[in-house]
């Protein structure tokens, strides 16, 4: 599904990713953990195609294609989804309008006709119930005045409606209360499928109790320094990152 090989990325003259290698096969859930500032969000943004990052080396293959050559909107239509660590508020752009425009963009890409407005709303309402979101949020501006947790739920709602092949969720669990964490995890779990992959960026092993990962990677100073199964997350919880930071230096 996703293959990152020796990726080097520079932001404003500073190298952030320093030869990152990672492979996520179809159907698997991988977690990426690591200290603040280690480059997790940078990786997520680079995968989604955010401008401002200079790729100085390496390759990224997504479903056999060179991901880095695609503009961001095409990556999305090809089935890549980024759940933002800090979802943007866009006052004046209707939440439901964005959802529909996003769905139609992907459908058009696949040669399908636009969704029927009524069926679309039925689907969205169903997913909202799953995410325990108030329906009034649909007619509000995108994330406008949403609480931190509501924004995160809205990201997951978008993901559920778009049904991507690869979702990268950047700290979608941060800022969620205990019940919301379960709701979000439950939502994410409904997407698990053999043809779909998930990358979870998180600081908390608790999320991984609900969404059990196939692999856990530790990102330190722009490189994956350790990979393992779900028990690695437990070990990190116990030991912190210090023992790995030594190795990265």
């Amino acid at each position, binding site marked *: 599904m996703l293959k990152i090989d020796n990726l080097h990325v520079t932001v404003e003259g500073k190298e952030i990713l320093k030869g990152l290698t990672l492979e996520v096969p179809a159907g698997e859930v991988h977690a990426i953990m690591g200290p603040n500032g280690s480059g997790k969000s940078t990786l997520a943004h680079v995968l989604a195609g955010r401008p401002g990052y200079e790729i100085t080396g390496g390759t990224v293959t997504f479903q056999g294609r060179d991901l880095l050559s695609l503009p961001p*909107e095409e990556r999305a239509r090809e089935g890549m989804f980024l759940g933002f660590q800090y979802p943007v508020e866009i*006052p004046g752009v209707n939440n439901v*309008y964005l959802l529909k425009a996003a769905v139609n963009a992907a459908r058009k890409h696949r040669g399908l006709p636009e969704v029927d407005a009524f069926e679309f709303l039925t689907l969205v309402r169903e997913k909202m119930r799953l995410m325990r979101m108030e329906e009034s949020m649909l007619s509000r501006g995108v994330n406008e005045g949403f609480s931190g947790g509501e924004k995160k739920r809205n990201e997951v709602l978008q993901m559920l409606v*778009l049904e991507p092949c690869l979702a990268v969720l950047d700290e979608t669990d941060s800022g969620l209360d205990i019940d919301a964490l379960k709701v979000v995890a439950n939502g994410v779990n409904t997407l698990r499928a053999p043809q779909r992959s998930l990358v979870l960026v998180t600081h908390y092993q608790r999320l991984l109790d609900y969404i059990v990962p196939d692999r856990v990677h530790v990102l330190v100073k722009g490189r994956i320094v350790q990979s393992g199964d779900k028990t690695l997350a437990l070990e990190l919880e116990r030991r912190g990152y210090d023992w790995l930071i030594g190795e990265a230096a």
Partner: protein
Amino acid sequence: MSNALLARLRDEYGAVRDALPDSVIGGERRLEAIEALCAQGLPTTREENWRYANLRVLERARFSPCASPAGMADLPAPLAGFTRFVFLDGVLAMGEPVQHAGLGVRSLRSGAQGPAPSMPQRIPALPEARLALLNEAFATDGAAIRVKREAAVPQIELLFIACAPAQAGASYPRVQLSIEAGARLTLVERHLSAGDAASLVNGALRVDLAEGARLDHYRLQQTSTRTAWFDTVEATLAQDARYSLIAVSPGALAARSTVHIRLAGPGAEVALSAAALGDRQQSLDTYVLSEHLAPRTRTEQIFRGIASGRARVAFNGKIAVRESARGTDSRQSLRGLLAGPEAEIDVRPQLEIYTDEVRCSHGATAGKLDENMLFYLLSRGLEPEVAQRLLKWAFLEDVVSRIELPALRRRIEHELAGQMSELASLKELLR
């Protein structure tokens, strides 16, 4: 300002003066107007509050009025519930006069309908408003509207359609509106072009609101992008009068609108919301002055302007609080969006306060489309072009959402947003 130009203006006036209808404006008053204008000179961009206007067309202008066109232009679909009057090149072409107890609407020219409505007193000419003098000198017709207190709020639509090319002369749309104590009116005023005529238009609008009167005024300037469009609004508000003005201006090659609002009675209130959308070579300039003359008066000014292509969009919003206006409350929110590398946007709040005890808050910003917002939309698969349009649309929402007539709002949304119009239908589905 060259003397040659003023001499030509005088000559042109002299050549047509005898043909100008007395019933619209008396000869003496016209002459006064031309003299007053010549004494001041035509505006130039060397003047602070004319800096951003495109005034070059005035130098080449033919000031004398064009001949009234024959025939009828294509008209937009009527607005349900509104009584429509159509003016071609400033002259009434369609619409029966209304004359009953609560409402009088008539063409200024038609002397047959009884005595001409009394001419409003001239307001001491503000240099920014002096193109109203040009209108006064040359006007060939106009609408006179008088509203008295009545159970139902009258709804009037005035369509001004510019037909003649500027070489054939200018047109002078004119409205004299007075609303009596406690009465109310909803007015939609649209300025359009016949096809892509390259016209010269110089309109003037006088509004007098008596005690407790209320005017909801929607102005759409949608003339062709070859038209030079000048316009002066002068409004006087008596005690507790309320004026809501919503102006949306996507049209004209060169537009300059001057709005002078005098809050003359205690408790009077004006809310002005303006949106201007310039693209390609368009130059859209607005100057607004809220003059607070009485205690406890209120102003709210909202401006949202977008400049794309090589367009230049400017808004200059001044709030003047005179000594007599204690307890004034004024708010300004002026925002410009720069949507092209060669575009230009200027938003300028000005405050002039001569008394204590006032509350004035203002914010003015000009910037580009937010990169984070843009990327968020792209990351959801939206075409860059659609994403930009959506963000521009959102930027205008602060103004468009204030349009309280759903049918009109929908129409404006459709016209401004093109494909974005499905947004409106989705909203309805959700209700």
